[in-house]
C-alpha cells in the first residue's frame, strides 16, 4: 500500500541504483519499481502492514552529509518501512540472504512440510520462498507440534492449524476488507491460532478470499480439496456470472472440466476479491443435471433427438401459434444470445412479448455511479436491499469508502445488513412500509429524512437494487428516491442484480409497444392468448402462477444449461452451453462490457445460445446466419452505437458503456 504523503518524492538508493519514489512509500513497494522483489508473507498490498513474519528483512542505511553511508546495525522489515530521503536499501547482500535463511528456518520449525498432500503445493508462497531463499536442508530433529489438520471452519473453508505460519493475513482480511472481524488469533506465542469464535461457523459472505491470500495451505477450499494439483490446471481469464457485479476471475479447469474459481485483478470492479456466491457457485458446470442432448416430447416421454429434429418440432410449434408467441429469459446469458433471442421474437416472429425481469413489480434500472466511483462519494444512502447479499462487490467498495475515505453511509433497509456496522445511521423499514418510508424521506420532515438529506447534500449517491421491486410499493419508492436524488444533485443507482440483466436491458429484451411483460405473458399462457412460450434459461415454476402458466401453454420450449422444474412441462428441451463454454460479452451492473473467451467445451451436444437462435432464425426466415459471436457484436453495435466498444478489441478491464438511454431497441425490435 503506497502511503502517499502529498506528492513529494524522495530519492532512495536500492542496490546501488538511485531512484525517486513518493515519500512514505513502503520499501517493499519501492523495490518493485526496479523490477526487484522482496519476499513477503504477511504483507499484502491491499491491507495495512503489520510486520509479523520478518520475511521481508533488508539492510537499510542513510547517506550522511559527508557522502558516506551509515548502515543501521540490524536488518529492518521492508514492509513497514516508509521511504525517506537518502535511504540506502540492500535487498541482495550476504547478510540479507542469511537473515532470510534464518527466518525461513524458524517458520519451518512449526510447519509440517506435508507439501505432497497439500492443496497449496505448487502455488505456495512458503514453498516458493523456501526454494528461493531458504536453507536447503533442515537441522530440525525434534518432534513437530501436532494440531487439528482438517477442521471445517465453514462449509467452504477448511483450516489446517499445523500449516499456519501466523502471518495474520486472514485475520486482517476479515477485519479490514470484509469487516466482520470474524477471525482472530487465539492464544499466544507458538500456540497462536487463527480461528472464529469457539471455532463456530465462519459466516462471512467473502470467506473464500482468505483461501487465496493465505500464504500456505492452512486455509483451503472444501470444494477444491484434493481435486487437482495446481500444475495440472489450465486457467482462462473469465468473468464471474453469479451476479451482476461481473467480477474478474480465473476459471481453472482440468481435462475439460471446471475445477475452481480464483479472483483476478480488475481495479475498476473487484480489485482482486470475489464473493462466496461467485467463488463457490459454479459447481453447476459439472452437475449431473446438465442437459446434454436436445429432447423432444413424445406423449408423456422425452426422447433424445438431433438438433435438426428439435428445430423441426420448434418451427412447427411456433408456426401454429402464429403471433401468439412469447419469450422469457433469465440473465445468465451473454449479450450475443440475448440479442438474437430478442430478434427472433420481435423481428422474425412479430411478437412484442419478451422479458427478462422477474421482480414482482417491473421497471428498468438506472445506474450513474460506476463501482469504483463509490469510493469517492461523500455520502451514500443504501435503500431497501442488503448490498452484501445482492451486490457483494459494490458492498466491499462501500465499506472501503466508509472506513478509509470517511464516506458517510446511511442504511435504510427492511433487515439488518452487514453495512450497518460502518453506517452512521441504520434504520429499519417495517413490513410493507417501503413506500411509506420513501415518502417520509422525500417529504424531508422527519429525523430520518433530515439525516438522509445531510448524507446526500454534497456529492452523494443512492445505492439500491432491483430487488426492492419485490417489496410491495417498492417500484413507486424507487421512483420517489430517483426524483429526490435529482433534486439534491446526488447520483441515483438502482443496480440490477441478475448476471447480465444490464445487458438484457440495454439490448431491449423488454416488452415492445403493446407487448406483454413477464407477468402478462404468464397470465396470457393461462388465458390462452399466448400459445407458444420459449423459456431461455429461466424457471417460472419458482414464481407465483408459474406452474399453471406452463401447464396451460400449448407449446413450450425450454432452453437451459441444467434441468429445472420447468423442464418437465416442455415440448422441446434444448441444451445450452454455460457461460465459460463459449465466447461472448457480458455487461455488468455498471454497464461495463467485458469479453469472455471459451475455457472448456460444452458437454454433449449443447450449443451456445447465439448459435441456437441463429439456426432457428434461419429456419423461419431466409437470412444470412451468424458464424461467430464477434459478428453478432458488430450487428449489435450497428443497431446501438452504445455497444461500439464491443465491436473492436475490448481492453482487458472492459469498457463502461455510455448511459444515454436513446430509446433502446425495446420498441420495434433490433
Amino acid at each position, binding site marked *: 500500500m503506497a502511503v502517499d504523503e502529498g506528492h513529494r518524492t524522495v530519492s532512495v538508493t536500492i542496490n546501488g541504483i538511485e531512484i525517486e519514489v513518493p515519500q512514505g512509500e513502503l520499501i517493499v513497494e519501492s523495490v518493485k519499481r526496479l523490477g526487484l522483489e522482496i519476499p513477503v508473507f504477511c504483507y499484502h498490498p491491499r491491507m495495512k502492514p503489520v510486520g509479523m513474519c520478518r520475511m521481508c528483512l533488508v539492510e537499510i542505511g542513510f547517506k550522511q552529509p559527508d557522502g558516506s553511508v551509515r548502515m543501521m546495525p540490524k536488518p529492518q522489515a521492508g514492509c513497514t518501512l516508509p521511504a525517506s530521503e537518502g535511504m540506502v536499501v540492500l535487498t541482495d547482500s550476504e547478510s540479507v540472504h542469511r537473515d532470510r535463511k534464518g527466518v525461513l528456518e524458524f517458520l519451518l520449525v512449526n510447519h509440517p512440510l506435508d507439501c505432497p498432500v497439500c492443496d497449496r503445493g505448487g502455488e505456495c508462497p512458503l514453498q516458493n520462498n523456501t526454494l528461493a531463499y531458504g536453507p536447503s536442508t533442515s537441522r530440525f530433529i525434534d518432534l513437530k507440534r501436532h494440531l487439528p489438520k482438517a477442521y*471445517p471452519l465453514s462449509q467452504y473453508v477448511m483450516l489446517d492449524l499445523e500449516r499456519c505460519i501466523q502471518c495474520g493475513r486472514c485475520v486482517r482480511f476479515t477485519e479490514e476488507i470484509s469487516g466482520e472481524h470474524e*477471525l482472530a488469533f487465539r492464544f499466544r506465542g507458538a500456540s497462536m491460532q487463527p480461528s472464529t469464535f469457539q471455532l463456530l461457523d465462519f459466516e462471512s459472505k467473502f470467506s473464500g478470499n482468505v483461501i487465496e491470500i493465505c500464504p500456505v495451505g492452512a486455509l483451503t477450499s472444501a470444494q477444491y480439496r484434493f481435486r487437482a494439483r495446481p500444475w495440472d490446471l489450465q486457467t482462462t481469464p473469465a468473468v464471474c456470472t453469479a451476479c451482476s457485479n461481473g467480477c474478474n476471475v480465473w476459471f481453472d479447469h482440468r481435462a475439460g472440466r471446471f475445477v475452481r474459481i480464483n479472483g483476478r485483478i480488475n481495479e475498476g470492479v473487484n480489485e482482486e476479491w470475489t464473493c462466496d456466491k461467485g467463488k463457490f457457485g459454479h459447481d453447476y458446470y459439472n452437475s449431473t443435471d446438465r442437459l446434454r442432448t436436445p429432447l423432444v416430447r413424445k406423449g408423456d416421454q422425452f426422447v433424445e433427438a438431433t438438433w435438426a429434429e428439435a428445430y423441426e418440432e420448434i418451427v412447427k410449434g411456433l408456426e401454429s401459434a402464429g403471433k401468439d408467441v412469447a419469450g422469457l429469459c433469465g440473465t445468465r446469458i451473454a449479450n450475443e444470445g440475448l440479442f438474437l433471442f430478442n430478434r427472433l421474437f420481435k423481428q422474425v416472429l412479430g411478437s412484442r412479448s419478451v422479458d427478462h425481469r422477474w421482480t414482482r413489480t417491473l421497471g428498468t434500472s438506472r445506474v450513474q455511479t460506476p463501482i469504483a466511483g463509490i469510493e469517492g462519494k461523500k455520502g451514500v444512502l443504501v435503500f431497501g436491499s442488503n448490498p452484501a447479499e445482492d451486490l457483494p462487490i459494490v458492498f466491499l467498495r462501500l465499506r472501503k469508502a466508509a472506513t478509509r475515505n470517511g464516506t458517510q453511509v446511511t442504511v435504510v433497509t427492511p433487515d439488518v445488513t452487514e453495512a450497518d456496522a460502518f453506517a452512521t445511521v441504520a434504520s429499519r423499514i417495517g413490513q410493507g412500509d417501503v413506500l411509506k418510508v420513501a415518502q417520509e424521506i422525500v417529504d424531508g420532515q422527519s429525523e430520518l429524512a433530515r439525516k438522509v438529506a445531510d448524507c446526500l447534500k454534497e456529492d452523494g449517491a443512492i445505492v439500491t437494487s432491483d430487488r426492492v421491486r419485490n417489496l410491495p410499493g417498492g417500484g413507486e419508492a424507487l421512483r420517489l428516491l430517483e426524483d429526490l436524488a435529482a433534486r439534491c444533485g446526488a447520483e441515483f443507482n438502482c443496480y440490477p442484480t441478475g448476471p447480465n440483466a444490464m445487458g438484457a436491458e440495454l439490448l431491449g429484451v423488454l416488452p415492445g409497444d403493446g407487448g406483454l411483460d413477464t407477468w402478462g405473458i404468464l397470465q396470457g399462457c393461462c388465458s390462452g392468448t399466448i400459445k407458444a412460450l420459449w423459456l431461455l434459461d429461466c424457471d417460472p415454476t419458482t414464481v407465483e402462477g408459474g406452474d399453471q402458466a406452463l401447464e396451460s401453454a400449448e407449446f413450450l420450449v425450454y432452453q437451459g444449461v441444467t434441468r429445472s422444474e420447468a423442464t418437465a412441462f416442455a415440448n422441446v428441451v434444448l441444451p445450452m452451453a454455460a457461460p465459460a463454454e463459449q465466447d461472448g460479452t457480458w455487461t455488468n451492473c455498471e454497464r461495463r462490457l467485458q469479453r469472455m473467451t471459451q475455457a472448456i467445451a460444452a458437454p454433449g451436444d449443447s450449443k451456445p445460445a447465439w448459435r441456437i437462435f441463429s439456426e432457428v432464425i434461419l429456419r423461419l426466415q431466409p437470412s444470412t446466419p451468424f458464424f461467430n459471436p464477434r459478428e453478432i457484436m458488430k450487428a449489435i453495435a450497428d443497431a446501438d452505437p452504445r455497444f461500439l466498444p464491443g465491436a473492436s478489441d475490448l481492453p482487458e478491464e472492459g469498457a463502461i458503456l455510455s448511459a444515454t438511454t436513446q430509446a433502446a431497441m425495446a420498441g420495434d425490435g433490433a
Partner: protein
Amino acid sequence: MSETVAIGTPRPRAPRPEELDLKFSESAVAELDALKTHYPDLKSCILPGLWIAQREYGGWLPPEAIAEVAFRLNRSFAEVEGVATFYTMYNTAHKPGRHMIEVCTCLSCHVCGAYRIVDYLEEKLGVKLGETTPDGMFTIHEVECLDACDRAPVLQIGDQYVGPVTSEMVDKILDDLRKVETPSAVQLSDAVVKVHLRDGDK
C-alpha cells in the same frame, strides 16, 4: 477441537445478539458504562470489560462471558476471545476452584525453594499443578515472575502476595482460605476493576 466434521456440512453458528443470555448485574453494567468513557474507543475497553465479566461469571470467562463483553462493547466475538485467551490472568480454559494459589517458580523464587513449596502443596492437596481438588476448594498453578523477588518464594492468592513462604505457613494459609467464601479469582477481578475505575477518576 479435534472432533471430525464432514466436509461441506453446515456448521453450528455463533449466537445472534438477541440469543445471548446476558448475566451482568446492574452495577456491573454501570461500571462498564463508566469505564467506556475512559477510552477513546470501545476496543480499548476490552481488558477492563473482561475483568468485570470474570467477576460476574464467578472467577472465569466461559464463552458466554466473552460473548457478553463483545456484545456490550460492540466488538466481534472472535476479537474479544483473542484478547481473553492471550492473557493468562483471564481464566478461559476452565473454571478454577474456589481459591487459586499461584506459585511463582521463576528464577529468584526457584532459587529460594519454590519447588519445595510446589511439592508440599501437591502432596498436601493431592493434586498436580494446574489441577483442582475434588472438593473444588483449591486450584494450584505455577506462574512466571510476579515482580516480588524480594519476597521469594512468593505466592499469589487473589490480589494478595504472600512471601517468603514456608511449608508451615502453607498449612495456615490453606486453613484460613477454607473459611473465605469469596473465590479468589472473583476477589482479584473485583480489585482490578476498582483500580480501573479509580484511575479514571483522577
